[in-house]
């Protein structure tokens, strides 16, 4: 696995841990379909959260959140609908929300973590 991918994987782990600590229930990880991949699907209260995780070693090439632009967000919404179509029971009558977790640091466990709730 490339170092980048390793960092990415480690970041996702960290993100999942963070969510659980916040009271989220992880429903799915790395769900793939033709349109792309969702990093984490979780649920909190009665809301379904589609979470995009971005990890960076440093902000030298931009803040992780800067990667989540308009185009990316639209794709995330499409992916979210695709997931709910594939999982009707889990999605039934639940509100959907986009979220983002950004990690900055060479070591995922100690990296600075930022969590954006309810992206537009």
């Amino acid at each position, binding site marked *: 696995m490339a170092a980048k991918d390793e960092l990415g994987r480690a970041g996702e782990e960290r993100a999942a841990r963070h969510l659980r600590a916040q009271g989220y229930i992880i429903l799915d990880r790395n769900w793939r379909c033709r349109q792309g991949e969702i990093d984490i699907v979780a649920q909190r209260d009665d809301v379904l959260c589609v979470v995009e995780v971005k990890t960076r070693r440093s902000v030298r090439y931009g*803040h992780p*959140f*800067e990667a*989540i*632009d308009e185009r990316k*967000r639209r794709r995330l919404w499409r992916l979210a609908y695709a997931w709910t179509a594939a999982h009707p029971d889990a999605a039934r009558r639940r509100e959907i929300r986009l979220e*983002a977790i950004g990690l900055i640091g060479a070591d995922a466990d100690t990296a600075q973590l*930022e969590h*954006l*709730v*309810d*992206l*537009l």
Partner: protein
Amino acid sequence: MSTARTWAVALTGVDGHLVEIEADFSAQTPEFTIIGLPDKALGEAVQRVRNACTNSGLDIPRRRLTVNLSPASLPKHGSGFDLGIAVATAAAGGMLSARAVRGTVHIGELGLDGRVRPVAGVLPAVYAAARAGFERVIVPHANAAEAALVPGIEVHAAASLAEVAALHGADVEVPDVDAVELAAPDEPETLPLDLADVIGQEEAVDALIIAAAGGHHMMLSGPPGAGKTMLARRLPGILPLLLDDEALEVAAIRSLVGEPVMKLDPVVPFVAPHHSASMAALVGGGTRMARPGAIVRAHRGVLFLDETPEFQRAALDALRQPLESGRIEVHRAGFTASYPARFQLVLAMNPCPCGNYGVRGAECACPPMSIRRYASKLSGPLRDRIDIDLQVARVAAARATSGERSRVTSASARERVVAARGAASDRLRGTPWRVNGEVPGERLRLGVLRLPATVRAPLDRALERGTVTLRAYDRVLRLAWTIADLAGANSPGIDELGRALFLKKGLLA
């Protein structure tokens, strides 16, 4: 996430309007948007502010940033909002005191490196801030001198964003930067021009004084080397000095044009554009921002158009609006800027294309058709505005080099002009006009200013006979009043009428 506010100034024409800059971070993925009718240059502020902040040690939160410039409906131009936007952003991001920036006006462009760069129009902007009651304004270092000319407001000159941030309580290191300077002014300091330098042209000097006393627009006609330019350049020296607020207005215009303004100049401006100048250079307008042209720079002063027939027709036509109303409008895509432009016009032309027509001892090579065509390049409406038609002849070489000086100095002429203008403004109190040159014909022909029949008789007869037009009639009356004012007479008599007729020859025109 929080919001912070500070102030900047938007300019329309010479007038400044206070603009409130509101910066707001929301919990969204990073995006930087400026709203409130910014133009393209303003829109690019995003890049400049972002980089400048980073390079100043101001860590802006990576969140969605919306900057609003209100009032929302006022179009805003240029890069002068950069500093304010950066400051509001930093305050909204918690990096400096929001309270401190709330009551301060910020003006300046930001370089990517964080240096504060000069912008045009700082003087009128600071003037507007002072008028609006603000006590403090921060301006680029290069514009500090002009900002200081505005009374009643505290001016801080800043060289870098870091400096400004630190001023507002930010925990940043202020680097020792070389402040961005304005380019040195083009024209070197010139020696004051004196009327006494003009020799052998008593009639012309007299006519110049009359032009100054009554605000009469003037045409100088004569061969090259006769001294038309020399005369025109001495007109500002005999016009009354500007009052403080007038000098401030003139300085504000120079600031708008982007000229460095170091002090208030009490002598009226003298602007002499070349006949090949573009419409934009004459009237105003840049590619993106409306920048006033030569006509506006001549406001409260003298506009000299040497070789008038060589100017584009359209350029000469553009003079009509300001001559009529004292203002000029510059149209750009989407908005119109209006500038003050009340000036005294001096036109100059050769007697013919080759310049030798009617010159003693010279041969004119022009065919009569081309002489007529040359003279007719001036439109009727423009000619109508010219009260004084002066023929300037070459002075004999012997006289010119004799070292002889005329007895009339600029200082003495200016005294006479000021006294005459005082008499005129007393008489015109309560009317919209201040000098005789502005008074329309009907006011002089009818009403209290009407001259007794015995004085008017020769003019009336000529009008009946058709040897003068009504416009020429009015011009003669205007000049006669100025001549009377200069002589200290209560009203013009037959002598003053004769003098006025002498000045305005070519009566059929």
